[in-house]
C-alpha cells in the first residue's frame, strides 16, 4: 500500500555544504496506513542507477530535524507521520550528474505483532536539472 507514492520527486536535487556539492536528496513517504515512531522504520534498501547505497551514507530530516538513518532504530519517540514527506540526504561528494537517474527504494516498516514487518517498493526515474 502507498508504494507508488513513496518517492517524492519534487524534493530530488543535489545539495551543497560549505560551497561544495556534498550529495543529493529526495523525499520519502512511509508505505503504511498510519504514522509510526521512527524505531519502526526498518531497512531502507536504496539503489541509484543500480548501485546500492549504504544506510551509513543516509540521513533523514523530519520537520527540520536531521537524524542519521542508522540512529532511527534507537528512537521510539520521534514520529514519522502518515503521509509526511521525510527528506533522505545521501552523502556523496560531487552529487549526481545532470540528467536522468533511476531511484529504487524498498522501505521496511516493523508493524508486525511478532517480529518482522512489511516492505513497500517504489522506483522512479527523476532528473537532476542543470
Amino acid at each position, binding site marked *: *500500500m*502507498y508504494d*507508488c*507514492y513513496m518517492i517524492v520527486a519534487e524534493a530530488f536535487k543535489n545539495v551543497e555544504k560549505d560551497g561544495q556539492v556534498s550529495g543529493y536528496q529526495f523525499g520519502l*513517504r512511509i508505505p503504511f*496506513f*498510519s*504514522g*509510526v*515512531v521512527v*524505531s*519502526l522504520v526498518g531497512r531502507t534498501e536504496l539503489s541509484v542507477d543500480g548501485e546500492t547505497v549504504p544506510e551509513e551514507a543516509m540521513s533523514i530530516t523530519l520537520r527540520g530535524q536531521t537524524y542519521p538513518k542508522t540512529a532511527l*532504530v*534507537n528512537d*521510539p519517540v520521534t*514520529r514519522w*507521520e*502518515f*503521509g509526511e514527506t521525510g527528506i533522505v540526504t545521501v552523502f556523496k561528494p560531487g552529487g549526481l550528474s545532470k540528467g536522468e537517474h533511476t531511484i529504487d527504494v524498498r522501505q521496511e516498516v*516493523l*508493524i*508486525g*505483532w*511478532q*517480529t518482522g*514487518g512489511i516492505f513497500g517498493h517504489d522506483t522512479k526515474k527523476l532528473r537532476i536539472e542543470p
Partner: protein
Amino acid sequence: MMTKAHSIKRAASLYSFQEEYFLGKLNLEDLLATCQQLDIPGVEIIGEQMIPGYPHLPDAFFEQWHGWMDQYGLTPVCLDQFIFPQIYKGRRMTEDEMVASLQEDIRVASRLGCSIIRVQHSITSSILERALPAAEKAGISLDVEIHAPNTLEHPFEQELIRTFERMGSPYLGFVLDLGIFTSRFPRIITDAWLRKGMKPEIADFISDSYDRGQMEQLEDGIRARGGTQDDLDVAFFAKHLVSSDPRKLLPYMQYIHHVHAKFNDMTDEGWDDSIRYEEIIPVLVEGGFSGYLSSEYEGGWYLQDAFVVDAVEQVRRHQLMLKHLLGEDEQAAGKGA
C-alpha cells in the same frame, strides 16, 4: 419495503479518506466538514493515522477537536488503536508495556469523547483484562475487531467470548468488520492484478474459485494455467477473504458494539460490488444491534496505481445505501407527507 424498527446509527471512519489525507488534499478539519456535508452523524478516527503526535497531545488539540464536533454537528464514536510491539531495539514490548499503551489509548479516547475503542485483532485476553478497569472507569468499551480471515467461529474469537462471559462486563466486546461477508470476489482487485500483468485466465480462475467457495485447489490450478510465483503470492491474499453467513452473528449480538461497514467499490447503481449489505443489515436489525454502522472504504489501495481515488464520492454513495437499507429515506418521505 418497510424497515423494522431499530436504533442503528450511521458514522464514517476517517480511515475511508486516507488517500486524500496522505496526499495532503484534505486535512482533518476538511474531513470533518466533509462528514457534515454528507449528512453523517458519527465519526471514527485512527489516532496514529490522522492525529500528529499521537498519543501525546496538547490540551489545545482536544479543545479544537470538540470545537469541530460542535461546528460540524458530529458525534465522536470510536477511536481505533494499535499496539506496535517492536518499538524498542532488540526486544519485544513486555505485556506491562502493552497494557500501558492501551491505557494511553483509553485516556485519549476519553478526552476525544469516544465511547468505543477499536482494539486491534492481535490483542490477548490478558491485556484486555488488565486494561478493563481503566476502560470501565472512563465509560469506554474495548472492542476487538473481527476481521477476515477470522470469523466469530474461530478459536481466537471463541476464546475472547469466553473471556467476555467470565468478566461479565458490558465494556468488552467486538467491532464487526463486514469484510467477513465478502460473497463475491472484488472486481476492483482482479482489475488491479490485470494492470500489473496477470494473465486474464488466472485472474478469472481465482475469482471464480472464490465465488464458488472452491479454494482448496487454488495453487494447483494457478500452476496448471502457467501462473508465476507473483501470481501465487497475490492469490494468497484471496485466501484471506471470507464469505460468512450473516445469520451466524445472531447468537453473539450482545457482544457486537460497533460495525466497520467495509466496502471497496460502490457501483454506479449504488450497491457494493462484493458485499451484500441488503442481506446483512436486516440481520443486524433482527439481532437488536443499536450501535453505529461506520463506513470504511478501502478500495483506494486497488486504484492508486492507475487512478485518482475519490473516497468522498465512494462514501457518499455508501451512506445513501445505508440510509436506504436503514429505512431513513422512508422516514424522510413520511415526514414530508
